[in-house]
């Protein structure tokens, strides 16, 4: 088999992050090549380089031996590279045929004009779909009315209409039902027979073994290895993906774990919170691991009253409560540092002082006006306690660095004197120095008796900070490990694959004491 696509020494630097560092990749005609790595390993950046969205800083890219440079996605498309992103990029108000031919419509002559030839396009669409063994999709239907599985088939037909030689699929099964997954696999195999090279990204390891011929693993922006799937195993792949050492980025302080601050029983809120039962105790850091979309943030939002629970029980310090709104959660001593500080955490054009006091303003009143002195004191205290680097409390938060912005959000919630602090990706998008500082802060807060529920996509962070680790997948808590028994491998396995979990269970049963 010959290589269609070859990448050598690809590096890509973003402000503050080296997303790709000397990465190579090669895919052949008629193969399914799986691309694996943790969140943030560089998979997305790599496929964006291949599809012309990002230009690499260094390195060469060849198609069938010829060097190519893409300035934009259009040029990549013309070279036969098609990408199906996780969020499908279709126009819901247009028909199937209109979507398939978006940007490269077929034309015919009408007198002196060249006009779009809808008849030909509808016929061609039908032909494309038929060639994929899709016989139940009318080219005249609006895409908005289709199921996710059908929309994906439209995307594939669109890729074919561009004569794609390389088809990149970014987590294509993430939102599919099982029946749709089976059909998708059939289509992928069909394309493979026709000599299309498929780059397949998935977190589900089982799919890699079902479908792929070779697999390439990335970690922290570095190339790890490429192997034929037949010569590897799930354990092997997981080790390749997560194998890194934990340094003292995680200052963990001893802390006295006492009573239960939060207990939830059979908590449900469709579609991503299913029968969740868990506890968080005072002085304890509970790490909540799981893939993006596994329902971690959704669980936090149920507990914080943003999307109130449909059923199940919530107990705060042993007392049953109903939490219907964030305001109510705050009164009960729950605080939530959201995932995205820009859209959910901060009012960017306001000052540090105004952001920090936002959640507790009603307690800072003197008559009908806000008590300036009390507010200033609070802001100064917060800046000092969290060592926020700013020239004054009057600085607009937009001008702070990511790490300092995050500290302002944390400060806002500490001002409400919570008993339970939920932190969703507390160190996303902050540099390493600030990361260590935020970790220290989390440790100190636990030491002071706060119960902390920390959601994170970074396994080292989960392992380094947590006293106890819960793993979620598809809205359920799949596993619980103590700090002592948790390893990157068993958490990653619980996050990703049924197969591994079942295997582990069987192993547990048969050997009765392993893992």
């Amino acid at each position, binding site marked *: 088999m010959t290589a269609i696509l070859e990448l050598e020494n690809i590096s890509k630097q973003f402000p503050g992050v080296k997303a790709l560092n000397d990465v190579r990749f090669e895919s052949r005609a008629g193969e399914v090549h799986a691309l694996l790595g943790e969140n943030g390993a560089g998979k997305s950046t790599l496929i964006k380089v291949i599809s012309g969205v990002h230009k690499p800083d260094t390195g060469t890219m060849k198609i069938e031996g010829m060097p190519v440079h893409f300035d934009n996605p259009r040029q990549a498309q013309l070279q036969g590279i098609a990408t199906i992103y996780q969020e499908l990029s279709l126009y819901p108000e247009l028909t199937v045929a209109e979507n398939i031919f978006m940007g490269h419509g077929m034309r015919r002559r009408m007198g002196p004009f060249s006009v779009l030839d809808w008849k030909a396009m509808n016929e061609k669409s039908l032909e494309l779909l038929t060639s994929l063994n899709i016989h139940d999709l009318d080219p005249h239907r609006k895409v908005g009315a289709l199921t996710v599985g059908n929309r994906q088939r439209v995307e594939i037909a669109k890729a074919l209409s561009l004569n794609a030689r390389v088809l990149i699929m970014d987590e294509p099964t993430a939102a599919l039902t099982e029946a749709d997954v089976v059909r998708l696999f059939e289509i992928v195999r069909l394309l493979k027979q026709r000599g299309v090279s498929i780059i397949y990204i998935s977190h589900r390891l089982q799919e890699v073994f079902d479908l792929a011929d070779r697999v390439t693993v990335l970690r922290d922006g570095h190339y790890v290895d490429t192997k034929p799937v037949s010569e590897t195993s799930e354990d092997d792949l997981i080790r390749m993906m997560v194998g890194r050492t934990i340094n003292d980025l995680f200052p963990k302080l001893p802390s006295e774990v006492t009573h239960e601050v939060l207990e939830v029983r059979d908590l449900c809120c469709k579609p991503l919170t299913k029968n969740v039962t868990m506890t968080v105790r005072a002085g304890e850091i509970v790490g909540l691991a799981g893939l993006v979309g596994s329902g971690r943030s959704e669980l936090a939002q149920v507990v914080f009253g943003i999307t109130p629970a449909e059923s199940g029980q919530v107990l705060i310090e042993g007392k049953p409560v109903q939490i219907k709104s964030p305001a109510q959660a705050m009164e009960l001593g729950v605080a939530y540092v959201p995932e995205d500080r820009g859209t959910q955490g901060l009012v960017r054009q306001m000052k540090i002082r105004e952001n920090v006091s*936002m959640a507790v303003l009603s307690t800072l009143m003197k008559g009908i006006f806000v008590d300036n002195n009390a507010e200033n004191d609070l802001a100064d205290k917060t800046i000092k306690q969290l060592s926020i680097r700013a020239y004054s409390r009057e600085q607009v938060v937009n001008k702070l660095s990511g790490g300092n912005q995050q500290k302002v959000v944390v400060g806002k919630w500490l001002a409400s004197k919570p008993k339970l602090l939920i932190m969703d990706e507390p160190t996303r998008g902050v540099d390493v120095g600030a990361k260590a500082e935020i970790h220290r802060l989390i440790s100190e807060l636990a030491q002071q008796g706060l119960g902390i529920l920390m959601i994170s996509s970074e396994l080292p962070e989960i392992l380094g900070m947590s006293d106890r680790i819960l793993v979620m997948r598809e809205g359920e808590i799949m596993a619980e490990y103590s700090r002592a028994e948790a390893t990157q491998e068993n958490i990653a396995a619980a996050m990703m694959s049924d197969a591994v979990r079942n295997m582990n269970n069987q192993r547990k049963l048969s050997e009765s004491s392993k893992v």
Partner: protein
Amino acid sequence: MTASTHSNSGAASKKDGGFLSSLRGFFGSQEGILLIVIIVLMVAVGTSNPRFLSQTNLKDVFAANAYIAVAALGVSMVIISGNIDISSGALVGVLITLSGNLAVGLADAGWPLMLVNIIAWVAPLIGGMVIGAVNGFFVAYLRIPAIVVTLGMFSILKGGLILVAGGNTIYNLPEGYTIAQQDWLGIPSTIYFMVILTIVVFLWLRYSATGRSIYAVGGNAEAARLSGINTRRVIMITFILNGLMVGICSLMLATQFNQIQATAPPGLEMFVITAAVVGGVSILGGTGTVLGSTLAAILVKTIGSAMVFINVSPYWLKAVQGTLILVTVLVDVLRRRRQSRQ
């Protein structure tokens, strides 16, 4: 950033001469620039035509147009909250007609004059708040975009007004009704309305919890909601207060002359929005002060009057007003873009 930062940033930067630096801060802000532009414009036009600075003309510029600044207070609050109100002109038409007809009708029915006047003064305030509450309910609780809600309200009020009042003029207003004509201590009463209301609204927005919430909701509604702020209630309050300001504006306009034209003053809503935007209230919500909107209302009127005195056709006023809006919004957008890039 604004006048209020005097005390705050002054305290924060004591070392480098707090007063001077906060003074510099003020003149670097939108409000400071407006003040400078107004003064420069007055001096320049006054030099070329001294009659511009005569007492009658200044009275006309400040007193006769104070009602625009008052309505701009309301719409500024609405825009700061991240919404918009384009119904205020039509609402003013309805409220002045309501007030005038009540005054004439009740006086004819033989009610005591004092009581008649009080009713006729208070009625537009209540009416304004009721319509504001309706707008606010649609925006906050039914989540219909404010531009759609207030566009609908604009048509309903304007159409209704023509049906009911037919553009008539209301004469024979009872004695004592026309408070906007009065001078108190030698200063026209409307100036008091404008100045006092501007200060009160400014302080309320800046130092009350609800006022602060309006900025928070306009700046980032999601973050505000997650901080326990009842965003719907805040939007509702904002629209009701806007209605109150429109009501006071109507009261000032209705009592300005000895007769009332029962129509909506043409283009008033655009005038009012212009004042807010030129005054530094970001159309994207979350920033700006009513000090700015009041100064901008004065500026626009000063320009209008100045044009007459230097023999420029007043028809240019609209074009100047439009240019002002575009320039201000452009500056605002560029400023934000620069900030977000950092």
